[in-house]
């Protein structure tokens, strides 16, 4: 019920506001074996509240594009803005939370203290830190686990804790690079479902890298299909699925059609090399 109203609000205020705009983006890595074109002529607009998945074969530049958004890499050509600013400025404004494939929790910190890490760095007050830890633990369904240490948690719980850490400060963009890549199918399904709920509740814009077609289709409002050498976008699919998605939506014809189009896009990308 609650979820539904926020989703509505989400739709009304969000739909047209561009959060990320990439124009003719190029990125060349100089390497010992000569330059590697990781991104070529990438044009993409991500709107507020979008859930955008990046899918494509290994080496097509998914991670690189995410890192460009996060100002961890800098493009060698073209332009990109995040919230109307350069990625570097956006970072100073705490525009995004980043979730890596490995949870990367500090073993010497409890879960709560791990979540406090960005808050300490950003100078939140003690009471604010405690409040936010409570909130995000709730969001990722880890309430009560704050005092535990990472090794006391399963892989899936650790990854949820790392998502909580990325949610703790008010970044409105969440960038996730194969966050569930190392987890088994069942845990993954569960986390996907949770992630959708979390997205609906928090009004975040999410960039999500995956190798799984069903995962991409199930989660996204927009699916970006990429192909390698040079890394480029070959198709952008706007999902027609409703925002509210029970797991069994994956058996619907609509879902299968979108998945089919993604598969075609991936195949086309492969055909020309």
């Amino acid at each position: 019920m609650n979820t539904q109203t926020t989703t509505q609000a989400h739709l009304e205020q969000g739909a047209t506001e561009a959060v990320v705009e990439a124009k003719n983006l190029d990125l060349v890595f100089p390497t010992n074996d000569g330059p590697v074109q990781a991104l070529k002529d990438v044009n993409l607009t991500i709107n507020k509240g979008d859930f955008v998945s990046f899918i494509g074969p290994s080496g097509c530049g998914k991670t690189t594009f995410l890192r460009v958004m996060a100002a961890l890499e800098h493009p060698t050509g073209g332009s990109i803005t995040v919230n109307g600013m350069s990625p570097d400025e956006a970072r100073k404004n705490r525009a995004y939370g980043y979730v890596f494939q490995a949870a990367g929790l500090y073993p010497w910190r409890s879960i709560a203290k791990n979540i406090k890490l960005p808050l300490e760095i950003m100078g939140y007050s003690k009471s604010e830190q405690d409040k936010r830890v409570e909130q995000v633990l709730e969001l990722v369904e880890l309430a009560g686990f704050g005092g535990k240490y990472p090794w006391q948690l399963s892989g899936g719980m650790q990854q949820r804790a790392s998502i909580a850490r990325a949610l703790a400060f008010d970044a409105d963009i969440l960038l996730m690079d194969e966050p569930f890549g190392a987890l088994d199918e069942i845990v993954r399904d569960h986390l996907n479902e949770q992630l959708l709920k979390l997205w609906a509740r928090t009004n975040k814009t999410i960039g999500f890298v995956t190798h799984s077609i069903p995962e991409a289709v199930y989660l996204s409002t927009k699916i970006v299909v990429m192909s390698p050498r040079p890394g480029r976008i070959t198709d952008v699919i706007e999902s027609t699925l409703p925002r509210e998605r029970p797991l069994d939506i994956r058996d619907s014809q609509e879902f299968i059609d979108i998945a089919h189009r993604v598969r075609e896009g991936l195949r086309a990308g492969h055909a020309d090399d």
Partner: protein
Amino acid sequence: MKTFLSVLTVLAAIVAFWYAACVPMNIKGVLDAAERAGVEVSPATSKERRDLGSFGLVVNNSFAIPETFAQDRPRLPAPHQVITELWKTTVMKKVTSKRSLVYHAQVTLNATLLGFVIGTGLGILLAVGIVHSKVMDMSVMPWAIVSQTIPIIALAPMIIVVLYSVGVQGILPKAIISAYLSFFPVVVGMVKGLRSPDAMQLDLLKTYGANTNQGFWKLRLPSSMPYLFASLKIGIAASLLGAIVGELPTGAVAGLGARLLAGSYYGQTVQIWSALFAAAILAGLLVALLDLIERGVLKRMGMAS
């Protein structure tokens, strides 16, 4: 239990070998003494005996074997002689006595610990500098390496003479030699430790807009702890060695080094060996203590291996 038995077996083998070695090492001295006391030995004169090998002497004079474990100043003291001496000079002596090994060990220990603290502090500071500054990395590291290639036995007298000429003496010169030996493993270990966080960890901090300082205290320093402890264990042993070497050129009257020196002046081999063992035991205790602290700390930090 099985490992315990194996360890015991190895230990027994070493002791047996040691006893066996005492016989040929000491036989000549024993026979010389016997000859002086009027006992008949073969060959009869010292000169003839010198031409015969030690093993030949043992074969000809097997009656003298027990005596090779009981000399006053043997070339190689037998294990029980060393242990007896250790016992007499530790448990049986008041610790304030100049003849107590505990007293001497404590003198050396003070210099060791002071040197260890100085060396560790210096090592950590240098490592921090090296990790954060390319210039320091390229200018300090080569010198640190060169410093360790100079034999300390050659350098120690110079350090002591130089410090003496500026009026520094007592515990400090020894501690400085200790520090000189112990800072190096700490530098090497800490540089590696502070650089141990992987690219992902560093990127994560970057996305939070963390500065160098925060990166150091929140990530680099805690990550380096296992490396630090490994270095400290090498460092403390090196410190002890430094303190002992520092006692040799001054003709110090107190300390394990002084005992070694005095022992060798007067041919008191039993005393030399017991001082050596005292040093080894002390080093073992210090390393074990660090090991204990390491376990506690790393366990609390969730980094126990």
